[in-house]
């Protein structure tokens, strides 16, 4: 396994740049970024200009700040409320999922106990269960328990990430020398202390990867809150945006597409920044996971 986040591989004899590959990749980048460019340009337009101008060119008055202001204040600032809800679901859900995966993956990798193989088989099998197939039964069960339409209905199912557990398990097997744990035990350190003072530090890149993907999964979560929540005050951003968008569809409706577009832009900026700033972590963590497939 490579732990170096950005390994330098010297290609023999500095190969020439390839024109064909460059053209192919430029097309790729255009495809990937075009919708985002459209989103940024559109967020500067008023509702009227949206409908009447060419999508990729700015047109009419520069309405970006006005759009942001309207987005944040529309319907008594419900957008900010959705933003806060999303933050809550991300911190509690993704944070909890990462902690549970780190503890569990470490336990699987570094300790032997009866029934370990069965536990592992069940968890691997669970990766193959479609999340949305589970969502309907989970909803029915939660509604029996009276948990639907509460924040718990979104947080509790977000807490389990079998794939995250798998990633930490693979990572811990390689990154933590068993001798180091033995030595710490000889010194009289308890298991919990060993985990938090030694192991967690060595696991950091793997845990950061799991955490980042858990953050993306909860930030982008749509299906689970869609079925669990009916009170708009509990909605995360994704459901809220969809609500605004569908308001424009009905007959005689008052479309607020400029708010949908600006809200969408405001929704993706934090998550994109998180990804860009944590690049070195997720790239090294992912490569660790891919070695042991």
């Amino acid at each position, binding site marked *: 396994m*490579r732990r170096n986040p950005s390994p330098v*591989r*010297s*290609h*023999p004899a500095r*190969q*020439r740049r*390839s024109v064909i*590959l460059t053209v*192919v*990749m430029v097309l*790729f*980048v255009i495809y*990937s*970024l075009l919708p985002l460019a*459209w989103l940024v340009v559109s967020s500067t337009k008023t509702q009227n200009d949206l409908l*009447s101008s060419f*999508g990729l060119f700015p047109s009419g008055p520069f309405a970006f700040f006005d759009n942001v202001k309207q987005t944040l204040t529309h319907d008594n600032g419900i957008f900010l409320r959705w933003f806060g809800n999303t933050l809550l679901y991300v911190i509690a859900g993704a944070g909890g999922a990462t902690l*549970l995966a780190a*503890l*569990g993956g*470490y336990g*699987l990798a570094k*300790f032997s106990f009866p029934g370990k193989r069965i536990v592992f088989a069940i968890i691997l*099998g669970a990766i*193959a*269960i*479609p999340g*949305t*197939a*589970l969502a*309907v039964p*989970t909803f*029915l*069960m939660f509604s029996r328990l009276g948990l639907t339409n509460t924040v718990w209905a979104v947080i*509790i199912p977000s807490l*389990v990430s*079998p794939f995250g*557990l798998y990633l930490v398990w693979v990572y811990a097997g390689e990154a933590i020398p068993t001798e180091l744990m033995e030595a710490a035990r000889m010194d009289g350190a308890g298991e919990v202390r060993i985990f938090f003072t030694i192991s967690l530090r060595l696991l950091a890149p793997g845990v950061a990867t799991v955490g980042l993907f858990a953050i*993306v999964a909860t930030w982008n979560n*749509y*299906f689970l809150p869609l*079925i669990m929540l009916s009170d708009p005050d509990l909605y995360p951003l*994704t459901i809220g*945006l969809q609500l605004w*968008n*569908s308001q424009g*569809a009905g007959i005689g409706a008052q479309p607020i597409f400029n708010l*949908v*577009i600006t809200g969408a832009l405001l*929704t*993706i900026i934090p998550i994109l920044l*998180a*990804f*860009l700033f944590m690049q070195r972590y997720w*790239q090294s963590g*992912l*490569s660790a*996971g891919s070695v042991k*497939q």
Partner: protein
Amino acid sequence: MWFLVPFLLVFAVTILAPVIYAVGLSLFRDRLVGGISFVGFDNYAQAFTDEKFHEGLLRVCAFLVVQVPVMLVLALVAALAIDSGRLAGASFYRVAVFVPYAVPGVVAVLMWSFLYSDRFGLAGNLNDLLGFDLLKPLADEWILPSIGNIVTWEYVGYNMLIFYSALRTIPEELYEAAAVDGAGPLRVVGSIKLPALRGAIVIATIFSIIGSFQLFNEPNILRSSAPGLIPTYFTPNMYAFNLSFLGQQANYAATLAIIMGVVTAVIAYIVQVRGSRQETQ
């Protein structure tokens, strides 16, 4: 093993319990007259003759057969190009292609449905420019490819990254040996890179298949832009969702969820067994 206990507790509540509960539900039926009664496998028999369910299942299969190979080949090309050492600024391409993965699915579909729209999207702009309707992404015959394009856009970068990470683990000595043997770049791709990618390709294929069978978000959100084109049973997942939330048929919805879970698991298993068998040959 105490480290595993918190995970297993939540796992039991959020995964095992719903699965068991769903199996239980699927064996009962709630009738207006007579209430809840045990019906054995009647719900499963109903699914076998349910044309709406079959239509949705066939649709996701058609989607899968086209979209998954297209997306994975694109991801493979991008990964090989970025890893080739023959691009200036390779890391920029890597990040740019990956960026859509971080965009929430809801936002991705909203953006594309605006772009698709002939009222004020790019499709409309282009048609106006040409003077006739070249692109009709939201027309009946194009709706499935249009959804495929959105899914490809969202996940091609993620798959590219999985392939790219696997390529970076190839030891440098192999390339040096190939250079000594005078192997050209295509030979290197064929005899070193592609074999090294086999495991990653199997994993990516399995995840993509699971994703296709679960298809829900994209068509469900597109429904607000094209309500007439996408029926409530467009995919099996949408059908199950609408049965339990609009139709109050929880038992039958649970049955469909179980069938889809089993079908997905079986296909994922076959892909994995076939993939690893070829590996050992």
